[in-house]
């Protein structure tokens, strides 16, 4: 057998342990996990090999491993693991390491990696939106809590769409898209096997593969079903959350189209706040309820995890926490507005903007990045097979 010299990166092992894989050293390579995994293929299954790479500090092996993304974290491996090495958590810790290091500026990744970075992550949008609010008081006769001409509470009075929310969020959104694009390219670079890649047979263009992944896997959550029938609740909750994002994104798109399009074609003009019985508003509130349901179910699931088998890392709680913050402040803003409580309404709406900005601006370094990176990995697998 050829001799392989291994240079363990101990710092990487420690980082992995901090990112949720603290039990990884307990692994004794029995390979139960690879069999327990319902989605691991017969050829080079996971997560046994990832466990030994992690243990030996083989950073590059793990970073370039596409299987990290094929894992959907059902936890079957952890349930059967004889040593309580928690392979499922190690896989997600390894993904967390990718979120942390994949894209620039990596300082955000560092802030995102523990609760210590939270104040600064919060302060950036908090100052930004406070600045916007302060500047806007100049347009509202120096009032911090102004009412519209007809006496209603209109959030746009302070956070005026055309000049504040829309440009800031567009820059944020397209900035995040650009960073994610670079991340995906970098990820593809990492996935590439050493040497030449020879593709035999017909290939489809990449966008057809994207279409296939979306239609066959994401829309149906097929991999979640493959994870086993006993994980149905997890699938339902994740689906609710996923579709609530789809609904709310659609509502946002409609409102944006109505607002900006309305400037050109007055017939489609749409202004907020919309009446409660307006179809788009009804859809938005349905989206909110789905969001709350999915969040509650996923949070309860995490709280009920037996730490002997699976635990939750900061990345898990950050993502759940930030979505909770967005959902609750969004819901309360609407409630206070309808109750005509002007001060709480604006304050809560301000926080809502802060949290929404955090959710999107930090997306490439947060666990929510899985939405893009995992999709990219699934597309890569369809394009090139698995190396």
């Amino acid at each position: 057998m050829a001799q392989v010299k291994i240079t363990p990166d101990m710092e990487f092992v420690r980082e992995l342990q901090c990112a949720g894989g603290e039990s990884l050293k307990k692994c004794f390579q029995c390979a139960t996990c690879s069999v327990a995994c319902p989605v691991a293929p017969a050829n080079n299954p996971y997560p046994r090999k990832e466990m030994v790479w992690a243990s030996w500090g083989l950073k590059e092996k793990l970073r370039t491993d596409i299987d990290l993304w094929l894992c959907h974290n059902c936890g079957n491996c952890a349930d059967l693991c004889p040593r309580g090495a928690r392979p499922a958590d190690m896989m997600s810790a390894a993904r967390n390491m990718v979120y942390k290091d994949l894209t620039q500026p990596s300082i955000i990744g560092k802030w995102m990696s523990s609760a210590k970075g939270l104040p600064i992550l919060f302060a950036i949008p908090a100052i930004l939106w406070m600045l916007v609010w302060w500047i806007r008081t100049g347009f509202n006769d120096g009032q911090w809590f102004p009412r519209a001409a007809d006496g209603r509470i209109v959030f746009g009075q302070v956070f005026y769409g055309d000049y504040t929310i829309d440009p800031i969020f567009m820059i944020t959104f397209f900035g995040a898209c650009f960073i994610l694009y670079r991340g995906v390219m970098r990820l593809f670079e990492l996935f590439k096997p050493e040497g030449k890649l020879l593709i035999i047979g017909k290939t489809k263009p990449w966008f057809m593969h994207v279409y296939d992944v979306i239609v066959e896997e994401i829309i149906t959550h097929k991999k979640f079903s493959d994870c086993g029938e006993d994980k149905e609740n997890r699938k339902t909750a994740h689906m609710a959350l996923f579709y609530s994002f789809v609904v709310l994104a659609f509502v946002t798109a409609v409102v944006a189209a109505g607002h900006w399009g309305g400037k050109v074609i007055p017939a489609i003009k749409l202004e907020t706040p919309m009446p409660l019985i307006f179809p788009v508003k009804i859809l938005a509130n349905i989206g909110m309820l789905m969001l709350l349901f999915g969040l509650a179910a996923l949070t309860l699931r995490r709280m009920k995890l037996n730490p002997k088998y699976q635990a939750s890392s900061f990345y898990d709680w950050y993502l759940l926490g930030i979505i909770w913050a967005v959902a609750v402040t969004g819901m309360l803003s609407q409630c206070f507005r309808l109750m005509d409580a002007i001060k709480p309404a604006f304050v809560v709406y301000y926080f809502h903007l802060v949290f929404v900005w955090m959710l999107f601006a930090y997306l490439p370094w947060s666990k929510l990045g899985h939405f893009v990176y995992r999709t990219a990995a699934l597309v890569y697998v369809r394009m090139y097979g698995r190396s």
Partner: protein
Amino acid sequence: MSNSILVVGGGFSGLTAAIEAAELGHDVYIVEKSPFLGGRVAQLSKYFPKLCPPSCGLEIQFQRIRKNPRIKFFTQAEVVGLTGQKGNYTVNVAIAPRHTAPHNVDFSFLASTLEGEATSEFELGLAKRKALYCSMPFAFPGRYVLDPAALTQSDKVKLAGNQFVNLDEAPKAVELSVGAIVVATGWKPYDVTHLSNLGAGSVKNCISNMQMERLASPFGPTAGKIVRPSDGHAPQRIAFVQCAGSRDQNHLNYCSYICCMATLKQCAYLAEQYPDAKITVYYIDLRTPGRYVKVLDKVKASPNVSFVKGKVADVVQGANDSVTLQVEDAIRGEKLTLSYDMVVLATGMQPSLAEAKLPLPVPVDEDGFIIGGEEAGIFAAGCARMPLDVMRSAQSGTAAALKAVQTVKGR
């Protein structure tokens, strides 16, 4: 004050402790739960280190007991109470009725004519036994046992007038006065029904290593012919699943020390009976303590035995009563799904005290192994203390006997 010694458990280490203490001049009482002495060793086909049949070592022990008037033993007996302190214990023993005459009556013909049957504990579920039975030819005591619960109505009529059978025999209670106690309560095979991913005992032809011993034993249900329990066919492809429920936090959280050697021994049984049969051993690590490594070298040299690193993590029923297992070959990084005629789960030893509690002040660890009690004059021997092979069990029996003797010496 008493210089007698109580030995709880009549398996190899208990017998050894009892005999050693008695031969040093102490009165010894053995309390054994089952109807016969010999314990788990009696169930083996052959045992290490010399691979002799159990009759070999046990016969000598039984002879020493027979010839030594200082040793008294109670079978179907349990310790139910203890009072006093070190050097001066009063032990209450409850004895279940045997329902047969105290001398060795040959019941073999009568037993064979009875209708009532029950699953044989001694054969680990591989066979039925009659209501009137003796577990094996060299059983000691050689007295038959009658299990009234297994009798049919016509059996009862048949037995009604028999002067050597007493269906109305009542349980007995005795009180013993002892100065020290040896606890040699031994072990039981880990219950495979807990191993949900390994078939939980419901997959045909997926047997435990102890069942394999019974199949290989000339006195077992197949008279020593190793065949599939479901159809009696000779297996051609056999797999051994090491660490079945061992070194596993969900089952036995320790290594039982003997299962690797047991598997190597059973590979030899199979290779002897079926020179062409293909045998695969799936393991995490192979543990062959001390000189036993030579056995591994020998088995590895046989052309039809192969070793694959990887723990079997899934066992299901295949077609034609075959057994399908799934394992990752961790060296090659390949997940294999393979079909075998027969699969042997190398289960570990669980101390008997893991579930059953003794009315003795002996502390046990979370797994049920005894971890103390010596200050009270109570000494653990054999697998009640830790997983051991027969040789080391005997040694620990001697050690416990010496300690017990020192406790009661001079009284």
